[in-house]
């Protein structure tokens, strides 16, 4: 899932300075699961903002709405009527959700309430760890299911570097060396040949905004034209 961290209240307050009526939109998918921007977090943030602005004698009216997925047009549509009643929108979704809202309501200022942090896993309640950089060129089949792009601080494709430190990465005693783990796992599986050959320079696919159209589908032309208009 996509993991996010809520921004500090001071930063959010600064963005909302001057606005009196703002709709806070939560997202019910990834950011709700990672406890950053779901229905509950919308309520908490609104209460904080309400209190802070009252203390400053500059009250703000915060609306609340959490849709299933801000990155999905079908769910976003449920916001159309509500948005009209507000000067600005605060989105607690990931960066994709924020942008999709901004695109749908181009006349409304839209502000992010979270910092989108990574694609990761749930290690325990409230504890998440990064696992994927969505590089578009997955090599996990060669590296024992451990991503060198994400888990190696230098993103080496032919590691390990000379900085391994008792199995840990040179950048932190708490971060295991990805290539040490890759070596151990492949050794255990009898697959060290996977990393004996030189892995050539990566043809990076993530240098421009990417689009995926699955086989058998196509971009509906009419809708695209309507969007442009």
């Amino acid at each position, binding site marked *: 899932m996509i993991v996010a961290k809520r921004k500090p209240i001071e930063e959010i307050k600064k963005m909302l300075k001057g606005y009196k009526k703002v709709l806070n939109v939560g997202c019910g998918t990834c950011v709700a699961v990672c406890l950053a921007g779901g229905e509950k977090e919308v309520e908490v943030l609104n209460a904080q903002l309400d209190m802070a602005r009252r203390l400053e004698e500059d009250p703000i009216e915060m609306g609340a709405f959490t849709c299933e997925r801000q990155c999905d047009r079908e769910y976003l549509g449920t916001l159309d009527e509500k948005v009209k009643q507000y000067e600005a929108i605060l989105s607690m979704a990931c960066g994709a959700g924020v942008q999709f809202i901004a695109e749908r309501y181009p006349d409304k200022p839209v502000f992010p309430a979270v910092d989108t942090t990574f694609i990761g896993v749930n290690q325990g309640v409230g504890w998440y760890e990064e696992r994927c950089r969505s590089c578009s060129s997955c090599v996990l089949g060669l590296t024992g299911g451990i991503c060198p792009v994400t888990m190696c*601080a*230098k*993103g*080496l*494709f*032919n*590691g*390990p*570097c*000379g*900085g*391994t*430190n*008792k*199995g840990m990465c*040179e*950048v932190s005693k708490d971060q295991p*060396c990805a290539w*040490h783990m890759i*070596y*151990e796992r492949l050794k255990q599986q009898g697959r*060290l040949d996977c990393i*004996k*050959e*030189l*892995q*050539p*320079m*990566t043809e*990076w696919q993530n240098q421009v905004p990417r689009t995926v159209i699955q086989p058998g589908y196509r971009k509906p032309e009419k809708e695209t034209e309507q969007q442009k208009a």
Partner: protein
Amino acid sequence: MAERGEPKSGSRLEKILRAGHFAFTGELGPPRGANAEAVKKKAAHLKGNVDSVNITDNQTAVVRMASWAACIFLLQEGLEPNFQMVCRDRNRLAMQSDILGAYAHGIRNILCLSGDHPKFGDQPNAKGVFDIDSMQLINLVKFMRDEKKFPSGTELDEPPRMFIGAASNPFAEPYEWRVQRLAKKIQAGADFVQTQCIYNMDRFREFMKKAVDMGLHEKCYILAGVTPMKSVGMAQYMAKSVPGMDVPESVINRLRGAGKGKASEEGIKFAIEQIQEFKEMEGVAGVHLMAIEWEHMVPEIAERAGVLPRPELS
């Protein structure tokens, strides 16, 4: 030594190694400023005492004068530089243009490194580039030199005929993989390797035995890394705080045992003993002396280690 084919570069270091001489290379860290005199002053200590001088590239992720620029000063002073290039600060495009520019200026050796993570430096949140890694950089230089092409396939009008170097650390885990990694660097195109500073001689002997068993010393010149310890404090720091460094307790105790004010002499003695052993060790083609901020001691160490005079080449 097996047949190594035609010379690959115009490097003096390559000529020395091909002629079967025991190579002796040095190192110079460029200044933290635009100070040409600082480079020339350090170079003067090395001139005539080493075959080639590694010029570090923003080592420990701290900004210094560009490696290629300091290399040019060395050429002007009559020394042969070894241009260190790390993958941290440049993407593949900048690397290719720097390689071409360096070669055009007369630089004939390049040492391909990943580079320390930006976190170690004084601007720790700089974005590390790592577009390619050291293994791929070795391969890139080889491709440009031997295929006379850019990676795109476009012809180069004059290829950079570099003598290609790599680093090898026998002392970082997983130990048993380190010799395989050296083999991989040779496969990628390394002509010579310089090892991490050696203090644990037992582990190095074991590493060299494996390398020789695999015949790696016949495909690539292996230079053993030596850094003389200046003090007990330096030894303790390296043991504790430098990742991938293996300083046995016995080495620290030896320096400590030398007594007050005598640790640096003991450090030099240890380095000289190491060099003498490397001269005899199967598969070791030379020594890379990294006298960190101690360049002025190089003439004495070289003299006492019996590596002077350096061979003259016709």
